[in-house]
């Protein structure tokens, strides 16, 4: 009996309640408590006082915590397969979910695929449309460029003609057809100041020459014929016919044109004289 009293007073029971004993010591205390009702009663009394001590220091957690804690308990509670009452309710719920979900997903992908296909077709049509329009635009630009080119050529030409006509130093000499070719005629512009000779291809009236022959312009200087260059009459009808600049001559007494073999001759073939005009 004395031993028990000493045991109780040693303070080991307090440490037991406070959770401050090793596993072996705990087992020993539990053994003592089951053997001796006094020890058990003492333990109860210590526990009760410490529980009261804790409630004297209690702090009420917020109301929010109650929901949070109870939710976390009850969620794990329903997931717990050890709980027999729940498993019965659990299975049909799962069965309901699966067939409901699966057609929905299939439908979704079906519609998504159809939508993608439709979008692809629309895109291809739109792309073809845009491609055609691009082709049209390209050909329009090409033809506009060509027109522009022709127009600027024409402007250049007219510009050159105008520069001749405006220049007051030019004299315009009209060459008359000879008895050999009475219908022939042509205009020669000659500037005594610049010594330049220009023929007007647009008003040229000469029979078209063949491949082996060319017309040759001559100036008669001091009774001798001087070569002023060759030209073709083939382009005479051409709208784009140019003013053609010939070789220079200072003081001609007359201009004449003869038909010569291609490349021209040193001396004019007099019986092939087409037009002539003395100044």
């Amino acid at each position, binding site marked *: 009996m004395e031993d028990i009293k000493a045991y109780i007073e040693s303070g080991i029971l307090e440490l037991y309640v406070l959770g401050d004993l090793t596993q072996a010591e705990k087992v020993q205390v539990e053994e003592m408590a089951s053997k001796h009702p006094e020890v058990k009663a003492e333990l109860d009394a210590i526990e009760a006082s410490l529980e009261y*001590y*804790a*409630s004297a220091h209690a702090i009420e957690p917020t109301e929010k915590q109650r929901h949070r804690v109870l939710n976390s308990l009850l969620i*794990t509670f329903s997931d717990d397969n050890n709980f027999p009452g729940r498993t019965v309710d659990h299975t049909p719920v799962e069965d309901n979910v699966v067939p409901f979900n699966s057609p929905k997903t299939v439908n979704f992908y079906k519609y998504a695929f159809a939508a993608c296909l439709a979008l692809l077709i629309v895109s291809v049509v739109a792309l073809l449309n845009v491609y055609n329009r691009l082709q049209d635009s390209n050909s329009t630009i090409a033809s506009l460029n060509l027109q522009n080119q022709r127009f600027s050529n024409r402007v250049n030409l007219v510009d050159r003609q105008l520069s001749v006509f405006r220049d007051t130093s030019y004299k315009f000499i009209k060459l008359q057809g000879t008895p050999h070719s009475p219908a022939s005629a042509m205009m020669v512009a000659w500037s005594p100041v610049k010594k330049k000779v220009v023929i007007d291809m647009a008003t040229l009236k000469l029979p078209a020459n063949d491949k082996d022959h060319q017309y040759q312009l001559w100036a008669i200087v001091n009774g001798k014929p001087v070569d002023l260059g060759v030209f073709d009459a083939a382009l005479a009808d051409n709208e784009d016919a140019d003013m053609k600049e010939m070789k220079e001559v200072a003081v001609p007494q007359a201009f004449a044109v003869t038909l010569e073999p291609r490349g021209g001759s040193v001396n004019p073939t007099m019986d092939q004289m087409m037009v002539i005009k003395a100044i």
Partner: protein
Amino acid sequence: MSKKHKISLSEEELILALRHREKVGAEALYDMYSASLFGVISRIITDEAIAEDVLQETFVKIWHSFSSYSSEKGRLFTWMVNIARNLSIDKVRSKDFRNHNKNQELENNVTFIDEQKNTVYKPELLGLKDLVQNLKPEQKSILDLVYFKGYTHVEAADELKLPLGTIKTRLRMAIQQLRKNFN
């Protein structure tokens, strides 16, 4: 705070309800013990959010390991307060918490908490605070260190620079004093 919803069962009823994992058992468990357990946790962990986390962990652990509780080994609250204290101490010693750097000086905690928080008033505990104040300061400091701070009596002896025997005696005297007041 309304207290009309609170559920209270006798300890036997509660243990039975918890064994059967009934919802009412969980609710009664919380309503009956959350304040006391939160009081213990809050004295170890001053950060309120972390203390609330530990409170939740404590109840989850109680709920899940309830089968390991045996009423022959002692009162339900003793078992639960050990779980709460151990989880709190684990948290305080975790790297996570130390980085948190909000710890207070240990000695100040208990009174600090009491000043800071509105502790609960229950009619049956009216005047209890005064009774607790009857404890001699040296008894109270040892009891608080071990009960609320989770010190072992060896660590408490070290902290207070007292021989182990004295610590044990004072602990016992403190609890004796409490018993005298309550009974």
